[in-house]
């Protein structure tokens, strides 16, 4: 019985320790990123399913913001009213610093 407790304690302790280490590392090694990327990422479904061809929603958001990806329809689980429309509206309101807009469209 007591060894089972040890198993719990050891795993919890290790998890906590490594989690703390990672938290510190993520602060020390923080990279400043375009804030529009995380905004667009929040508007995607965030399933990280990879159906769009990118490894996850974050990479898809990066490419939408940079203008490399213009077809939102690649995001298969996305809904017109919940995901596509807010992103199109957001990209309309937030152009690049020099004023160019990368507004994506939806082609299923």
């Amino acid at each position, binding site marked *: 019985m007591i060894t089972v407790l040890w198993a719990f304690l*050891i795993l919890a302790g290790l998890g906590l320790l490594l989690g703390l280490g990672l938290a510190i590392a993520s602060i020390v090694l923080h990279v400043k990123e375009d804030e529009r990327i995380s905004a667009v990422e929040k508007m995607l479904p965030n399933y990280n399913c990879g159906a769009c061809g990118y490894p996850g929603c974050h990479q898809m958001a990066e490419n939408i913001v940079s203008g490399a990806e213009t077809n939102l329809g690649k995001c298969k689980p996305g809904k017109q009213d919940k995901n596509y429309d807010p992103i199109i509206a957001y990209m309309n309101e937030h152009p690049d610093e020099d004023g160019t807009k990368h507004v994506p469209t939806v082609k299923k």
Partner: protein
Amino acid sequence: MNYLAAFLLAIVSYSLVSNVVLSRFYGICSFIGVGNKIKSAASMGIAVSFVIIMAALICYPIYNFILVPAGVPYLDTITFILVIASLVQVVGLFIKKFSPSLYKALGIYLPLITTNCAVLGVVSENTASKLDFGMSMANAIGTSIGFLVVIIIYACIRERLESSNVPKAFKGIPIALITAGIMAIAFLGLSGLIG
């Protein structure tokens, strides 16, 4: 002195004779996936080497001084995966900070080091064959050197293949797999290197 000789011999044996990719068949995924450009192959090799050596360094005391005395050595796999996953996260953050272009080139294969069986294979082998600390590190260093050397050789061959006249049916991945097979046969010749 004897121990030092055994240590060096173990490194040669783990890197060349029982090579991680070509005779133990670990870590094939990143080997095939990233082994098409020399630069990204070399960086992948260094990233994997770092994770293997650090994982062996951290997992040895955790297994021998925490898990075994507490009577729960069956927690080894889950603990090792926990350590490896954290290490890979740190390496990922580090590369993202200091070389965003490399981060892009490695892509999905960088987080996939977590499930690279070369890493878990080394630490599991260390505990399963009850190696002492020195030999565990020899295994880790030898395996890393082996992975690094082989993935760079492989990338060199594949860069040459890109400009050569390959039959249409073999273009791309098929010829890459055949190349890996021929390399494995070539490394088989090293099996008599250490008596």
